[in-house]
């Protein structure tokens, strides 16, 4: 949210770079008329002004710059002052003879220009206030931009910006550099698809070309710089990068999750095997034992036969004992995994 217009009439300061003393006095008068508290610094040539900016700690509200100084003028002067002004808005003061150059200067970062013959207190004031407002908006936008850059860079999830057509990597955050073992420069040389093994390059390109919500395959393999393979899920969204369309892409390492699922499946298989054993193997001697008991209950007159069945009872019971021990061992091996 852009702040409301600040009150610039207090604590206003200006650096006036002007070799013509008459012009300076005029501007000084105009400014004092419009601003209550005002600090003015006057430099008569380029060298002095640069020295002043270099040594002074105070930051000016604006710089008023004459285009013709004894030691420098024209585009060279503008570029040099721009380089040293540290984002302070520059307003050019010029005569008709340099009007064309003044217009050009707007494209290289000068905030505004004023024709000396047309300056009056109101025009000067309005020009300065507009410049200050624009400067304040620009600073806020820059601050927001920095915030988003930090959100990108310090996101713990590996994140990239890609060109929409070629999938070339335009940017990679710190998490991506750490996780994958590539420097930002390494990343900038390759297309995102190169992070995938050969067979997957087309698949990932297809994924990017599909609509984001599509429930397509989302398990991919990524190769780290040390040759290690990880399994990842890929999330992406189309965004504007500067003036071009691009993709923001995140990868989520699911290798550990997949390993865990695999472990669980192996354990499930063992549990199924135990259930099968319970049903078929354990019940075999058990049903024999029960059957023998049934039999003895029906007919108990022949001692020799009873002894035979008791012996069978022992065999089946021992068999069951072995099976139960085996199940216990299998269950223990479940814990070890």
């Amino acid at each position, binding site marked *: 949210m852009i702040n409301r217009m600040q009150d610039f009439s207090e604590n206003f300061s200006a650096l006036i770079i002007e070799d013509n003393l008459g012009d300076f006095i005029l501007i000084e008068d105009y400014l004092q008329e419009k601003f209550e508290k005002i600090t003015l610094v006057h430099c008569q040539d380029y060298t002095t002004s640069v020295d002043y900016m270099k040594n002074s700690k105070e930051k000016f509200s604006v710089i008023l710059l004459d285009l013709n100084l004894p030691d420098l003028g024209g585009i060279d002067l503008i570029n040099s002052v721009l380089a040293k002004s540290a984002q302070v808005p520059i307003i050019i003061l010029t005569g008709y003879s340099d009007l064309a150059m003044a217009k050009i200067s707007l494209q290289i970062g000068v905030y505004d220009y004023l024709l000396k013959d047309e300056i009056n207190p109101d025009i000067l004031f309005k020009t300065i206030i507009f410049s200050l407002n624009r400067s304040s908006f620009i600073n806020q936008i820059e601050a927001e931009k920095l915030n988003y850059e930090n959100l990108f860079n310090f996101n713990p999830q590996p994140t990239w910006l890609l060109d929409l057509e070629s999938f070339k990597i335009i940017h990679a955050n710190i998490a991506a550099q750490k996780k994958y073992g590539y420097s930002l420069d390494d990343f900038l040389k390759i297309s995102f698809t190169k992070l995938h093994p050969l067979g997957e390059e087309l698949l990932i390109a297809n994924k990017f070309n599909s609509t984001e919500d599509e429930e397509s395959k989302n398990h991919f393999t990524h190769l780290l710089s040390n040759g290690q393979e990880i399994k990842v899920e890929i999330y992406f969204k189309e965004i504007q990068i500067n003036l071009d369309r691009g993709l923001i892409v995140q990868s989520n390492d699911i290798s550990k999750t997949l390993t865990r699922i695999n472990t669980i499946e192996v354990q499930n298989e063992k549990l199924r095997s135990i259930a099968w054993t319970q049903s078929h193997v354990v019940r*075999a001697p058990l049903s024999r034992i029960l*059957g023998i008991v049934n*039999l003895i209950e*029906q007919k108990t007159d022949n001692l020799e036969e009873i002894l035979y069945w008791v012996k069978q009872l022992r065999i089946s019971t021992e068999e069951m004992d072995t099976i139960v021990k085996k199940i216990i061992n299998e269950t223990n091996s479940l814990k070890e995994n």
Partner: protein
Amino acid sequence: MEIFVIDDDLIQRMIVSKMIKIIYPSISINECENSKIGLAMLEQHKNSNQKIIVLLDINMPILDGWGFLDQIEKSNFYNLHQLSIHIVSSSTDESDILKANQYKFVSKFFHKPLSREDLNAIIGIY
């Protein structure tokens, strides 16, 4: 009436045979140690007019109970109205019971061991 006990476990076969002999002393019993032998012995009784009852185990080497049922289905044996097949398994696994139900000519699924009541239910109705 002929009873076929098809089971690879000798003791199980002995138990069932003894039980039947005690309850129904006149019935003749054929013990088969796997389905292959069972099928061969049944073949010999194909033209007999006697009631035939099969007590079939599931887990057996060579040819198991399912293989036996498949053969019976293929050779249209089950058209013989005098033939009734009962599965007698130590398995209490639900999937085995469901599988057995898919064979229309299987009368019932029994868990081992067969009790006196079970035998009465199987044999008594004839």
